[in-house]
């Protein structure tokens, strides 16, 4: 563990990313105390520029506090990013493990299925799914998961293919362990590091995807999100630039920090790869 941290620290960008990410997480966790009350309520006069009348980031067309919207939006973004990644991971790991471990025609079928999902325009499918199942936090998470599992399946399959023939797996087979316990107990733990790196990048792209959906008006109507803030600022950008600029900066910083953390994790978990680069 100490070794891991030492290697992680060597990547300066990753350390900065981690700090930013922690700040965003703290902001999300403390939003109800930092900005008590609903972010949908009127806080001051409409269209106040940043800094005026104690409104740090200004107010929107209905006098709502933009800063409060961003803090509360962080909760939704992180939550959607994390949950949809967990769901996508469970789909991708299951399919990838089945394909890689069983091989043969099962592998063929699963990989054709994966390819299909990689070919179709995934964003259009996500829009369609959320629109048809009506925008709720569940349909948004589901749609994001449905379009983001294929890379996981590919990575896991490749790992399983290469691990399946190793001695420790053969030993487990000879010992008479069941297939399920070999897959879960012997192969999967050894395939974890690429999955962890991929997961951090997936949270980042899930946050981008969620913001795009809610920008188009497909967010959960009861939840304040960054994409919604930008979407509502779009038509009044000539009047109030701050309405669309600040939420975008929040998305940028969060996603950038996740990508940097992903790079750091990759360096720390694959020390050989990091050194040769």
């Amino acid at each position, binding site marked *: 563990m100490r070794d891991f941290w030492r290697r992680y620290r060597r990547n300066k960008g990753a350390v900065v990313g981690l700090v930013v990410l922690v700040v965003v997480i703290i902001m999300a966790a403390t939003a109800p105390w930092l900005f008590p009350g609903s972010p949908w309520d009127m806080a001051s006069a409409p269209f106040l520029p940043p800094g005026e009348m104690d409104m740090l980031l200004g107010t929107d067309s209905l006098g709502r506090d933009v800063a409060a919207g961003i803090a509360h939006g962080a909760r939704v973004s992180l939550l959607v990013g994390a949950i949809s990644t967990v769901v996508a991971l469970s789909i991708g790991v299951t399919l990838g493990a089945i394909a890689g471990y069983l091989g043969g025609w099962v592998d063929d079928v699963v990989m054709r299925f994966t390819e299909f999902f990689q*070919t*179709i*325009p995934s964003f259009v499918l996500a829009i369609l799914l959320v629109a*048809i199942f009506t925008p709720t936090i569940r349909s948004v998470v589901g749609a994001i998961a449905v379009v983001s599992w294929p890379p996981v399946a590919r990575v896991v399959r490749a790992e399983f293919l290469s691990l399946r023939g190793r001695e420790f797996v053969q030993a487990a087979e000879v010992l008479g362990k069941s297939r399920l316990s070999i897959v879960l107990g012997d192969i999967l733990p050894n395939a974890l590091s690429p999955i962890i790196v991929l997961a951090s990048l997936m949270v980042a792209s899930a946050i981008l995807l969620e913001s795009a959906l809610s920008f188009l008006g*497909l967010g959960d109507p009861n939840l304040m999100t960054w994409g919604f803030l*930008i979407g509502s600022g779009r038509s009044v950008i000539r009047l109030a630039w701050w309405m669309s600029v600040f939420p*975008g900066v929040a*998305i940028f910083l969060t996603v950038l920090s996740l990508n940097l953390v992903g790079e750091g994790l990759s360096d720390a978990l694959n020390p050989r790869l990091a050194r040769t680069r």
Partner: protein
Amino acid sequence: MELGKLPGFLARRLVKAVLVVLAIVVCNFFLVHAAPGDPASVMAGQAGAADPLFLEQLRRQFGLDQPMHVQLWIYVRSVLSLDLGFSHRQQMGVAALIAERLPATLLLTGAAFAFAVVGGVTLGALAAQRVGRWADSLITVLALTFYATPLFWVGLMLVLVFSVWLEWLPSFGMNSVGLGLTGLAHVLDVAKHLLLPALTLGLFYLAVYARLTRATMLEVQDQDFVRTARAKGVPEGRITRAHVLRNALLPVITFAGIQAGQLVGGSILVETVFAWPGIGRLAFEALLARDYPVLLGVFFCTSVIVVLFNLATDLLYALVDPRVEVA
């Protein structure tokens, strides 16, 4: 690849493409049926509010009282004969609606793609030749930035800077309203409107292609055939162009194929921001009205575009790289 083997290769790819398109149609069918509520009212696009006569007509047309597999067959048959349904809201066939909007989208995605490939490959080649210099750092910064920025926000920021503050470029539409421009003036007018949306859509891919070109060029530069060329006294510029760059283009082609779907998906966001009158904008309007036949049609149509684009990159790849296996 030997030209003699090309027809077989193409035939196999065509079969695959047809299967993918069929799978998409089936996917659409199940989406309609998975939706909460009556499939007829989903297809009418007005859950609960459609007039009963129209619903009855839809029920008969799609055989909604028949068993599932018969319904599927009717649906597949009608989509494959390019009957994508009827938009009750727009009082127009979905296929006609899409056909009307398609040219604008093709222009936008085509321009963005060309910008990304030309800019990305140039920047990548520059960076590979001068590792650690400005082009190199620029690529790293560009890539980090555009991997983390929502596409629609990039568009809004470009509007803010170039339309609102500097007032250089128009921020929405495809041409100036009411001027009635013709000929060259019209082309220039469209080009002016195209600039910001194409930039928005293309910048992310520019960063991707630049990184890719740089990485492969660095890899190819050290290979034996390049050393041989150098030893033979081939001028350095020619080595870069004819030997290194040519090989470095292959992964760019591969990636372009893989990302075609993303590019088309991104155009929905960009067209929404810039009110560009293409199928992305159509999808957004359909979204606001919950006009499902149009949404399903857009999904089908964009998927077909992606499949066709993949077919084209496969062909291009086979022609450029003699090593591609025909298997």
